[in-house]
């Protein structure tokens, strides 16, 4: 046993004056009576308990002394730990899966209750800190021995819709190494339900498992995409934690009116995943909700808010002596994913053979004439396999350069600042991107009319990839993202509006790009006068699915409940009350 404040033992000296005062105090007052002989009858009946009467004063003093000593001992903050009182850093997992309800309480509440019981049991010299983790480590209370501060910090912890980030605890490796150097003065306790992506925990962190296996089905991915004007495809991926195969009904409803757009059934294998693609007819752009009908232990992952945005085609024109193949290409991509919108005049993008017009962006095949996008256009080069200059460039993502002949390539010099992707053996750029005077271009230094390039599959691939590269459409705006993600809304304006919708309420949220999606719900961003719908959902197989593989952590034994000092104080109070019951008769009968 050790004592946090052994100096308080000196307080026991106060027993001496206490005993003196006690004896003075217990001398009974004298009362003269006229009928003493009548009182004799009372004395006779009291004589039966005279032994107790004689010992009572001594017993009373003994009780008072006991109570006093118990209080003194409580002040010294004794602990049964042989002097080892390491500080505690309690980290509580507040990821979405901690919202799982077990026995009427969420796992987060169970973790907070457990931590609170540890804080209650803190010895006087022992300190603790409180932190939470989801995507990053957040401290709510720094090291203190004030149990109330720690409990207040616990009360302030709110559940999050975020999935536990695998690297969120990395910074604790520094703490672990520091703890090793200081002879383990701090114990790091991680309270988690272990529903997460596989974590690599720094050494020295003790995992405390919260909750037990709970049956849950959750949506791990969802997407809503146009496949044709007025037609879309819903993609959904689900995971089951049930030990047997299950069938669940899912519905797609509009987020505003709740109009049902589609109801379908998904069959899930036992503790497994399944994906479904559902075609949707006559669906309108806007905010949607994909929901699992029925209830399970975790409600947060039963809904996936989705956004279906109006198509934003690129206005495109063709400037070629042989426009047929270009027009066919434009028509194909217009039907498929509304990438292009043919237009004459005010086009944003030009598909060009030879010299390009004054458009914002240009895809230039077979450069000819004078143009700011090249210099010193010379004689034709001999055909041959190109040399890859910019490896992993987006333009090469879907093609093999070795299969291209680059017939009709001419010797030229790219303007300064150009990114050369492919080059001839003599160094002449064959495929490059450049930006001159606010205009951008991808230059294909070969003649597509040769070697049946128009008929090859690489022609539309080049056109598509170069178009999305020049117009910034490399990444299509998502329908939904996992909570914790950051999303850049298409557009150039630095100001705009952002609205978050959950349930029946719409609330404006701070507008900043990239936008951080932290909560489950439908988001609407307005930028460059265009409204963009987006959904935020848990989308984590770790959070929704079975507990990760591996043996459960060893049981952590930590003192909980009231500390010894509190019990001593309680004992002192009980003794004082007992003494009072005894002595109260002497004072007031």
């Amino acid at each position, binding site marked *: 046993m050790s004592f946090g404040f052994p100096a308080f033992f000196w307080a026991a000296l106060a027993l001496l004056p206490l005993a003196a005062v006690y004896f003075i105090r217990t001398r009974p007052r*004298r009362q003269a*009576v006229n*009928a003493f002989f009548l*009182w004799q009858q009372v004395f006779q009946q009291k004589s039966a308990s005279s032994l107790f009467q004689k010992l009572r004063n001594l017993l009373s003093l003994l009780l008072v002394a006991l109570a006093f000593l118990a209080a003194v001992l409580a002040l010294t903050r004794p602990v049964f730990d042989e002097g080892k009182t390491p500080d505690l850093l309690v980290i509580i997992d507040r990821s979405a899966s901690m919202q799982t309800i077990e026995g009427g309480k969420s796992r987060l509440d169970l973790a907070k209750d457990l931590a609170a019981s540890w804080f209650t049991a803190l010895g006087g010299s022992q300190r603790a800190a409180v932190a939470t983790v989801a995507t990053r480590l957040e401290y709510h209370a720094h090291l203190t021995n004030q149990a109330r501060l720690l409990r207040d910090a616990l009360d302030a912890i709110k559940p999050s819709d975020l999935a536990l980030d695998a690297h969120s605890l990395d910074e604790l490796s520094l703490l672990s190494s520091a703890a090793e150097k200081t002879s383990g003065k701090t114990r790091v306790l991680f309270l988690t339900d272990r529903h997460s992506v596989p974590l690599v925990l720094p050494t020295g962190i003790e995992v405390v498992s919260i909750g037990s296996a709970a049956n849950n089905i959750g949506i791990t991915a969802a997407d809503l995409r146009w496949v044709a004007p007025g037609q879309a495809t819903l993609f959904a991926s689900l995971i089951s934690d049930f030990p047997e195969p299950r069938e669940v009904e899912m519905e797609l409803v509009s987020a505003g009116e709740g109009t049902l757009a589609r109801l379908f059934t998904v069959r899930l294998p036992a503790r497994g995943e399944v994906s479904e693609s559902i075609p949707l007819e006559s669906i309108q752009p806007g905010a949607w909700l994909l929901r699992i009908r029925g209830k399970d232990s975790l409600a947060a992952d039963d809904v996936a808010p989705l956004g279906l945005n109006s198509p934003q085609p690129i206005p495109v024109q063709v400037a070629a002596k042989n426009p047929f193949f270009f027009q066919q290409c434009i028509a194909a991509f217009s039907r498929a994913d509304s990438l292009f919108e043919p237009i004459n005049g005010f086009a944003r993008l030009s598909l060009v053979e030879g010299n390009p017009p004054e458009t914002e962006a240009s895809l230039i095949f077979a450069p000819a004439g004078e143009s700011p996008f090249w210099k010193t256009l010379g004689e034709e080069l001999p055909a041959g396999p190109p040399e890859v200059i910019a490896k992993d460039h987006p333009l090469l993502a879907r093609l093999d350069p070795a299969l291209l002949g680059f017939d009709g390539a001419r010797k030229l010099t790219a303007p300064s600042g150009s990114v050369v992707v492919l080059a001839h053996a003599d160094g002449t750029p064959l495929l490059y991107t450049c930006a001159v005077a606010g205009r951008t271009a991808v230059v294909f230094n070969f003649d597509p009319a040769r070697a049946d390039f128009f008929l090859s599959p690489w022609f539309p691939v080049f056109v598509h990839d170069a178009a999305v590269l020049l117009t910034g459409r490399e990444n299509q705006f998502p329908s939904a993202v996992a909570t914790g993600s950051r999303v850049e809304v298409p557009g150039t304006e630095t100001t705009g509006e952002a609205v978050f919708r959950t349930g029946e309420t719409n609330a404006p949220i701070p507008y900043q790009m990239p936008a951080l999606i932290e909560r489950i719900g439908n988001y609407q961003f307005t930028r460059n006068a265009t409204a963009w719908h987006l959904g935020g959902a848990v989308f984590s197989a770790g959070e929704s699915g079975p507990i990760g593989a591996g043996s459960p952590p060893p049981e952590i034994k930590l003192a909980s409940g009231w500390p010894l000092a509190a019990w001593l104080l309680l004992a002192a109070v009980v003794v004082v009350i007992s003494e009072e019951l005894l002595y109260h008769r*002497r004072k007031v009968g």
Partner: protein
Amino acid sequence: MSASLTDPAFIRQLEALNLLARRVLRGSLQADRRTERRGTGITFADYAPYNPGDDYRAIDWKIYARTEELLIKLFEIEEDTTVYILLDCSRSMASKFDYARKLAAALGYIALNGMDRVVVHGMADHLTTIVDSARSRSQVFSFLRDLEAAETFGTGTDFNVCTRSFQARRRKKGVVLVISDFFYPKGYQEGLKFLQWAGHDVFALQVHDPADLTCSWLGDLEIECIETAALQKITITEKEVRIYQEAVAAWNEGLRSECTRRGVGLACTTSDVPFEVVIQSMLRKGGLVA
């Protein structure tokens, strides 16, 4: 500080009580007590045949003129009555001694105004004389001064010893008024019996301090006998209070039963009741009734 018994205000109170006594008792106060003995008084009692030796002045000549029979008129002998007041002067009376003295003063005043002889004795562990003998209205002030000078004394109360001592000193029969709390450890029965045996008309006036009838203290106490200074430690709870109150009630009930059985007039009062109210009540009842 106790009020003086010779204070004019107190005297006025006594006079008022005396007037009330005259009106209530219509002149038949104890001093005018009729006696079965016939004599030379002025109050006609009966006729009797004349016998030689009788006072011929008592012959009713008018009757003789009508009936020629010699009859003499008999008159009641008017005797003066001695009122003995036995005032408890033990230390247990300390809290109500002034009150008891006022009662004695009032009764003695009325008796003196009725031309009775008044004797006052103090009782404790022995008998003392407070007023040896007073008669007539002229001795009222000396009577009151002597009564005022009386004090509590002794280390106990022995009623039996005092009554025997009283009888040894006062052979003449009279009215005995015992003013006391009757808290006699050795009992009151023998004393009352002895006074009755001696031929006195005995009346008891029990005076209590209200504090004697109950117990207002709780907790640890050292009980001290006010007369003997005996000490006893005790813890008083509601239970002890109840036992004490039952003991007091039983003691007083025993006194009442004893007085009823013996035909001894008894009046009980507490010192918080004005003494004149007690006297008025006694007068309206026609005296002390058991």
